[in-house]
């Protein structure tokens, strides 16, 4: 009972912040913008039909139409908007949870309750995840309805984006919790988390992709091994769109789109095109449990460190 009370109160604390509502409003604006787009046999219409662009690739009759929509939705809406912008807003909102909680006079009131410290720690942690759960649920449900109603594409598995986004957020939030407990400062926690994300986690994933997808780096064996190792260790924050594409299905169409895009590049030899295509195919079909499992392992290690700190600290 106290565990759930604490989770609910942590979430309530987040709801009191303006950013929570700002993010929801932003999401509604993006959903509205999405709803203003429609497709016909010639191409795509923007602003509820006020602007028309002829493009056979976006025509509703195109054989790649479904794959194109899934790619755009997963890469732009999920990967870029809510997975990136939303996550940053989420990190800003939640960075203060632990530093504020462990302030003298506040933490005493909770630690002096009949509840083990590890449960208090987990309740605060899960309460913070509530931010992303609400934000992503609202956004994905609304976009699911818009895509279904406006474009006549119903993708029930698109709803798996909700747990995937919470998962993405949880990787970074675990870092924020650790830094928050260590520094006791919301600003420092946010700064260090963003530094880790932009200086370590994203570069580790991107250098792996570059060194394994570029034919010129085929012979850089040591570097390729190192980037593989680094990519295995860090949480896979950039792979959420790919996981979502896998979950929705239609990966054959996405493979075909990738092939078409590569074919349009005259500078690449057929062998290089095939090499890059193979890598894109491999990335698209990577086992989800490997991607999620290694990321969760990272998160677990970070949470154990943070939990240990919380458990042992004299407040």
């Amino acid at each position, binding site marked *: *009972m106290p565990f759930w009370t604490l989770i609910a109160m942590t979430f309530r604390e987040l709801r009191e912040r303006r950013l929570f509502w700002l993010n929801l409003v932003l999401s509604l604006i993006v959903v509205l913008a999405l709803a203003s787009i429609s497709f016909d046999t010639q191409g795509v219409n923007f602003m509820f039909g006020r602007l028309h662009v002829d493009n056979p690739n976006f025509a509703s009759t195109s054989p790649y139409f479904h794959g194109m929509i899934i790619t755009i939705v997963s890469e732009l809406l999920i990967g870029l908007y809510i997975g990136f912008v939303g996550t940053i807003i989420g990190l800003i909102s939640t960075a203060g949870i632990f530093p504020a909680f462990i302030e*003298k006079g*506040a933490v*005493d009131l909770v630690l002096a*309750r*009949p509840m083990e410290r590890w449960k208090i720690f987990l309740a605060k942690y899960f309460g913070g995840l509530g931010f992303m759960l609400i934000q992503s649920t609202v956004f994905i449900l609304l976009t699911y309805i818009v895509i279904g109603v406006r474009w006549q594409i119903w993708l029930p598995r698109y709803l798996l984006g909700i747990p995937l986004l919470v998962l993405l957020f949880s990787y970074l939030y675990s870092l924020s919790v650790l830094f928050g407990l260590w520094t006791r400062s919301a600003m420092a926690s946010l700064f260090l988390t963003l530094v880790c994300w932009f200086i370590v986690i994203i570069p580790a994933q991107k250098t792996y992709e570059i060194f394994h997808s570029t034919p010129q780096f085929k012979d850089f064996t040591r570097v390729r091994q190192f980037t593989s190792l680094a990519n295995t260790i860090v949480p896979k924050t950039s792979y959420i769109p790919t996981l979502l594409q896998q979950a929705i299905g239609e990966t054959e169409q996405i493979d075909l789109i990738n092939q078409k895009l590569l074919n349009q590049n005259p500078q690449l030899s057929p062998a290089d095109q095939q090499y890059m295509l193979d890598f894109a195919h491999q990335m698209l079909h990577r086992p989800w449990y490997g991607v999620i499992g290694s990321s969760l392992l990272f998160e677990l290690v970070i949470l154990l460190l943070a939990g240990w700190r919380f458990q042992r600290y*004299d407040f």
Partner: protein
Amino acid sequence: MMNGNWAVELQGLHKTYSRRIHALRGVDLRIGRGEIFGLLGPNGAGKSTLVKIMMTIVRPLAGQGTLLGHPLGHQPTLQHVGYLPENHRFPSYLTARRMLHYYGRLTRASSISCRRRAAELLDRLGMSRWTEIRLEKYSKGMLQRVGLCQALQHDPQLIVLDEPTDGVDPIGRKQIRELLLEARQQGKSILINSHILSELEMVCDRVAILLQGRVARQGTIAELTDHTRSYEISLIGDQPPPPELLQRYNAKYEPPAIHLSENDPVRVNQLLDDLRNRQLLISAVTPRRWSLEDVFIDAAQGTGGDQ
């Protein structure tokens, strides 16, 4: 040997911060059931550390203790303990009603009992008109009152209060005092950590003075102050008492009164007889005793012997 007859029993508690700062250096303390116990000490004496160890907020380096018969750190026991920390920070976005409900639920109290007790306590402390107003609008004294409600609302057996009347007006102090005395009548044990010594003197059965991490003095107010009893004999007129008389009784003369550091009434009466025999007129004989503040200052300055 510890037993469960005490509400709080602490033995040889040591605490060091950063391996250098000795907050506690072997504290032994016992608080009886149904007793109000005052903990005094200058800043940095280790009072808050002691309280935090009891509440599992800080871990002791060495020593042991029990709370309501259970070892320190036994989480379920905390269900029967009410705690008001010093400089508490309640979620300012909550109303008093919601805040009390939140902390009540954290102590495993049912929603119904939380609501009932909260309403009752807020009414007792004159806060019933403020229940639906956010805490951010409250004054220090009001926060202190709702903080006290928070510590009492789950009907705890042991109540630990760190500076409970800090910032509270005289009426509020009286209300709090009455509430604590009532809780004692119900058999609850109360530990008060306060700088307002006159307050403690009014309600505490026993007190302990903590100095540099050690219990310097401990006992009932009477035990701590009895040895300081003295008499003041006021004289009429300008005629001073003979010096040999003052010397014999070890008394001092500060016109117009003689100060006699004597606890024995027989000796006082002898002096009175001697004064009358020398035709000195006496207007009043006033027994004097140190206040708790005097005892505290004496202990803090290290001029008196340990009790």
